[in-house]
């Protein structure tokens, strides 16, 4: 038998304060902002007339990815003004996700509810504000709750569904999707790391070689988390663009 002890959930999720009111999640959030600002600051200091390389190449590639892969696909040319917001959102979420696989950090900041919740609420405010700005208060809620082309009798069903879907569920789903995916990944990595350690240190020598299986699974999941970190940032960003685009131009 092996002595496998899974730590309490709070032990792998809640971090002690380094100084009062400041823990590992705070460090990751600050580093995410600092790294993003540093990257773009370094990029803007390079000569923009020559072929981009290094930090400028990376920064321009990210900007073009957001413009061509997110904004143009969901909002069209009119939405290009939202690029800085979507770019900041994507970078911040990605840089908060990635520490989940970086040694010594090994914790995605988005595996805690605070940051996804704040970002989802911010997006909620932004897309509702955009809808009200473009269509007026009543116009926006009319187009949202009473979608055109639907038989009037169906509004009894459609309007409550649209209200729950567009006004309540959207921010909730945005936050929970990001948080739950990152939390699940983090717990999976902890689980396989603990299992590998327990098997490698088992008293029964027969079990030691078996430890290679969860160890390979740990390596595979670490690689998978690289993809998940990018994918979740992309999904959050593109859904934000879809919501803002839908609020600004409901006819689309």
């Amino acid at each position: 038998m092996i002595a496998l002890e899974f730590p309490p959930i709070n032990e792998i999720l809640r971090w002690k304060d380094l100084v009062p009111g400041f823990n590992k999640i705070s460090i990751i959030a600050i580093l995410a902002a600092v790294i993003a600002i540093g990257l773009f600051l370094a990029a803007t200091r390079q000569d923009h007339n020559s072929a981009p390389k290094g930090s400028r190449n990376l920064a321009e590639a990210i900007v073009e990815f957001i413009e061509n892969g997110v904004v143009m696909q969901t909002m069209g040319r009119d939405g290009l003004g939202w690029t800085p917001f979507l770019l900041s959102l994507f970078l911040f979420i990605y840089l908060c996700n990635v520490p989940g696989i970086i040694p010594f950090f090994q914790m995605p900041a988005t595996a805690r509810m605070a940051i996804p919740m704040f970002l989802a609420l911010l997006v909620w405010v932004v897309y509702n504000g955009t809808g009200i700005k473009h269509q007026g208060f009543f116009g926006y809620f009319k187009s949202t709750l009473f979608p055109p082309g639907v038989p009037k009798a169906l509004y009894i069903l459609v309007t409550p569904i649209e209200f729950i879907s567009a006004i309540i569920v959207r921010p909730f789903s945005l936050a929970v999707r990001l948080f739950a995916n990152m939390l699940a990944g983090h717990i999976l990595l902890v689980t396989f790391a603990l299992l590998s350690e327990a098997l490698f240190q088992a008293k029964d020598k027969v079990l030691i070689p078996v430890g290679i299986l969860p160890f390979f699974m740990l390596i595979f999941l670490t690689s998978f988390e690289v993809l998940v970190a990018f994918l979740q940032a992309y999904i959050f960003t593109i859904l934000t663009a879809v919501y803002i685009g839908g609020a600004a131009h409901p006819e689309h």
Partner: protein
Amino acid sequence: MLRAVVTQSGGHVTGVRLVSADVSVVPAAEGEATEVEGTGPNPIAPETKELAWGAGSFLVLLIVMRVFLFPRLKKGMDQRYANIRADIEGADAVKAAARNDVAEYEKALAAVRVEAAAKIDAARAKLDAERAEKLREVNARIAARRNDAEAEAQAARAAARSQISAAVGTVATKATSIAVGKSPDASVVQRAVDAVMEGASR
């Protein structure tokens, strides 16, 4: 290690939950729900400090990106793309101009070829005419020289014959005078000799 915490009320089991082994279990007052120390707050609930630091960091990033970094980067990108577009348009214009130049050159080349062919034909015709003229002149000169040579030969032949005829006439006159003992008429002998020679030459 996980430990099962059983909650009893009135002698009946009302709930079972798993807690960490290092958590101390405090007996419940009046036999009600047990209090578990050390489990901490709900792990899903957001913490204010994380919310504050996360929100602050993101808002700083957003403001710096929106106000300063993105416009500067984008301006540089747009400027470079505009330069590239201008360079491409310039290259297209140069290419079109080069194509026009090539077309004009080929047109001029064709005209020059036609002109050169005409000049060559004219030169060839002129050369042929000059050669024919020269041939004619040379042939005439040769014919004139041949005629002169033939006339000279004829004259020389006639002179030789006259000398031979005279000599034969003299000899015949001498021989006849010796044979007959009297001198014949020399003119008659000479006519006879001429007639014989005339007949022999035919």
